[in-house]
């Protein structure tokens, strides 16, 4: 098993980040064009804790090398199952995802947490990401290591793109929310 982890901070409040997070893969995010579908499968509020639990199916069209496709079969379309938990009282979003496609070859478990940053909790949000990658293909350890290393490298590249793309979504969200507020104020005044 290999572990990839990263931490970064977004200069937006937790409320803004946790809202924009729902449209992380919208057309504003030009760095996530490989995500072709985001479907909500279930959504409930836990009556005891008030925690919002959401299940989503995320569909990607990855650019997979042809040799991988011919080796493992299947298509370039892959699916990810994501369960997320929003605790509005603790101001914490946790998202856990796992791959549905090629799950007999590779197991990728990612956990992402958004929380107010410790330095300026009201204006910035900390993002923590950890992925555990395990190659399951039987046989040589050497090959498993190679597969895991390549996957971690892929994760590192995607994490950087993901951050850049989400920054754009945050900026657009703030602008659009601002415009909506202005419109409502004008309407109220007239």
């Amino acid at each position, binding site marked *: 098993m290999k572990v990839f982890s990263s931490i970064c901070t977004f200069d937006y409040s937790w409320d803004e980040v946790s*809202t924009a997070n*729902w*449209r992380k893969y919208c057309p504003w995010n030009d760095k996530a064009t490989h995500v*072709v579908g*985001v*479907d909500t499968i279930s959504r409930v509020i836990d009556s005891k*804790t008030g925690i919002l639990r959401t299940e989503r199916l995320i569909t990607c069209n990855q650019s997979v090398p042809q040799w991988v496709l011919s080796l493992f079969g299947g298509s370039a379309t892959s699916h990810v199952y994501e*369960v997320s938990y929003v605790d509005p009282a603790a101001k914490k979003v946790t998202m856990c995802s*796992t791959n*549905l496609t090629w799950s007999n070859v590779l197991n990728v478990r990612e956990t992402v947490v958004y929380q107010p940053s410790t330095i300026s909790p009201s204006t910035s949000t900390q993002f923590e990401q950890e992925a555990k990658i395990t190659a399951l293909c039987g046989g040589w350890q050497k090959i498993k290591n190679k597969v895991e290393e390549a996957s971690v490298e892929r994760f590192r590249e995607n994490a950087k793109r993901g951050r850049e793309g989400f920054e754009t979504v945050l900026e657009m969200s703030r602008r659009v929310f601002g415009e909506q507020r202005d419109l409502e104020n004008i309407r109220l005044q007239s």
Partner: protein
Amino acid sequence: MAASIAPECNEVKEKYDTCFLKWYSEKYLRGNTKSTDCDELFAKYKTCLQKSLKEKGLDTMLDEARKSGSETDAEFLKKS
């Protein structure tokens, strides 16, 4: 908002997503966790989606993932 895996569900999904986002930012995050503004739209979207998931064989894949993912509920569905 991102598209649905089932193009025939896109219209109702779009309506639901818009409703949810408004509810999330204006009610849920402000402590109103009891309101059910978008339930009707979600039910419609779900009905549409389930059909497509079944056709694509994704419903069984999801069921399996759900089983192995139940430990995250124990960890994150409690008061922190």
